[in-house]
């Protein structure tokens, strides 16, 4: 066993970790989607987060594979299988879960150090929740036109979202992310790695927070912000075009033309596909 061999997991081992994290987190999110939450007063008690599963796995295996697997698992099991795929909103969830889990996984150098495990677990959860909150607020602002003009809406959105964030972090975050991770990581460490044919994580197999990680996170945040900005300017563009079109009839003619063009494009695509096959 030379050092180079321990350092990085092989491609097939990465695929194993991906499949493992996908199946487990997918199953967990499926349950949370099906189990209704219950509210006591204004405080919502929901088993919202089984995030402890990818958090635990990310601290033991290659964090990137675990993060991608968890995000894919959530997408496939709880959204696509139940038919609750929400389009653009799912992309945001995908990115936030990936970043949160990845950062938490990279923070832990030694799974035996429980202080670091706990800190990483709560940091990852907070990161994921915070990004989700920001995106949620922006989404309502985009969907409701004249957001500021509607009486009471801006304040209520900020308050509900802010409250939901704190509530999730303090309740779900501690009970369903921090404590189970602290329970599972030491128990699984050294037991689960041999099952996938790997060595347990130690100081040599992973360097902790380094420059590359910081750069990657900055790039990820930039990508998320860019996506938001694009979405914002996108609405402005469409609004402006509608203004220019002016009357309703022109708009409808536009829609009809667009649909005819779409059908034509499909025909051409089909023909192209047919040619390729022939």
């Amino acid at each position, binding site marked *: 066993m030379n050092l180079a061999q321990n350092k990085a997991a092989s491609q097939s081992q990465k695929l194993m970790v991906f499949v493992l994290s*996908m199946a487990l987190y997918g199953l967990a999110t499926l349950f949370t989607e099906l189990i209704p939450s219950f509210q006591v007063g204004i405080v919502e008690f929901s088993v919202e987060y089984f995030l402890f599963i990818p958090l635990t796995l990310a601290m033991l295996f290659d964090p990137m594979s675990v993060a991608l697997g968890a995000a894919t698992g959530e997408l496939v099991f709880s959204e696509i299988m139940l038919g*609750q795929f929400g389009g653009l909103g799912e992309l945001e969830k995908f990115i936030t879960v990936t970043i949160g889990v990845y950062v938490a996984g990279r923070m832990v150098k030694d799974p035996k150090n429980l202080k670091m495990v706990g800190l990483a677990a709560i940091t990852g959860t907070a990161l994921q929740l915070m990004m989700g909150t920001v995106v949620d607020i922006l989404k309502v602002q985009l969907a409701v036109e004249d957001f500021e003009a509607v009486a009471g*809406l801006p304040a*209520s959105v900020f308050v509900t979202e802010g409250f939901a964030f704190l509530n999730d972090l303090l309740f779900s975050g501690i009970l369903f992310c921090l404590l189970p991770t602290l329970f599972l990581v030491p128990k699984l460490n050294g037991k689960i790695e041999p099952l996938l044919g790997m060595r347990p994580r130690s100081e040599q197999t992973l360097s902790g927070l380094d420059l590359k990680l910081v750069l990657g996170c900055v790039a990820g945040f930039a990508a998320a912000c860019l996506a938001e900005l694009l979405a914002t300017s996108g609405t402005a563009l469409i609004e402006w075009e509608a203004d220019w079109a002016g009357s309703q009839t022109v708009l409808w003619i536009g829609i009809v033309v667009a649909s005819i063009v779409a059908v034509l494009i*499909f025909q051409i695509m089909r023909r192209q596909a047919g040619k390729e096959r022939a």
Partner: protein
Amino acid sequence: MKWKQKLSENILDKLSIDFLKNQVLKNAYGNTDTLIAKLDPRILIAWYLFFGIVPWFVNDVAFLLTCFLLVMITTWLAHVAGLVMFIFVLGVFSQTGYLLIVSLFFGGNASTILPLLILTLKVTTCSLASITVFSGLDPDRLSNGLMWYGCPERLSFSIAYAYRILPMLMEEFQNVLLSYRLRGNPPDHSGWMGKIRYLIYQVRIIMQAFYPLILNTAKRSRTTVEALEMRGYRYAASNRSVKKMKLSALKVTHLDSVFLALSLLWMVGGSLLMTWI
């Protein structure tokens, strides 16, 4: 008193893991004979892209209502499982209802309701369109359709794999939970404190049940990946001719054109009619 007990028994019965499992499996596998399932996945995905994105950017109530009615019809055609619909309705109304109450609290008035209704309409339309497509389609056809559009091979593999592995995983989780329950000694759940203690006990068991499940799934995923590797999965995934072979089963038929044409006619006709009214 008696009917109350019966009702709570009935509800508890409905919430058992077996029931959840059946509903999910029915949703995933149970409807290959519907009209929606017979359509070409590529056409349906394109159809979904329209109804999943466009309503977000349009504020015209007539257009939104027409969209909503159309996706309602297609959802009905897809024979979606009852539980899925129930969760969907609960989710939409609890979310916007909560927002409404809080905005009234902050000095909103009746004028707050209209934008919220439009928001609800948008959310509902997009979600129903996605329920139609992703719930009505066979998983294999769905993943083939996604692959045709150039989605990463990982994603379509994940979908196909998820549908195969889910029944096994659910069964295993149930077995682990049962064995924990058999061996465990649940606290006395009489009285208010007892109920809370019992709930905490239940949640703790669910958390602990993941420990054996993680180990077993690790073994299983190693087997899966080794079996895949033996058949050259990672090379086949990036090979063009393999992809072509896989996708040759997809065909756009007469039915698809009729579906698209009818949707278009509905949208244009319905919107015009509503604006005139």
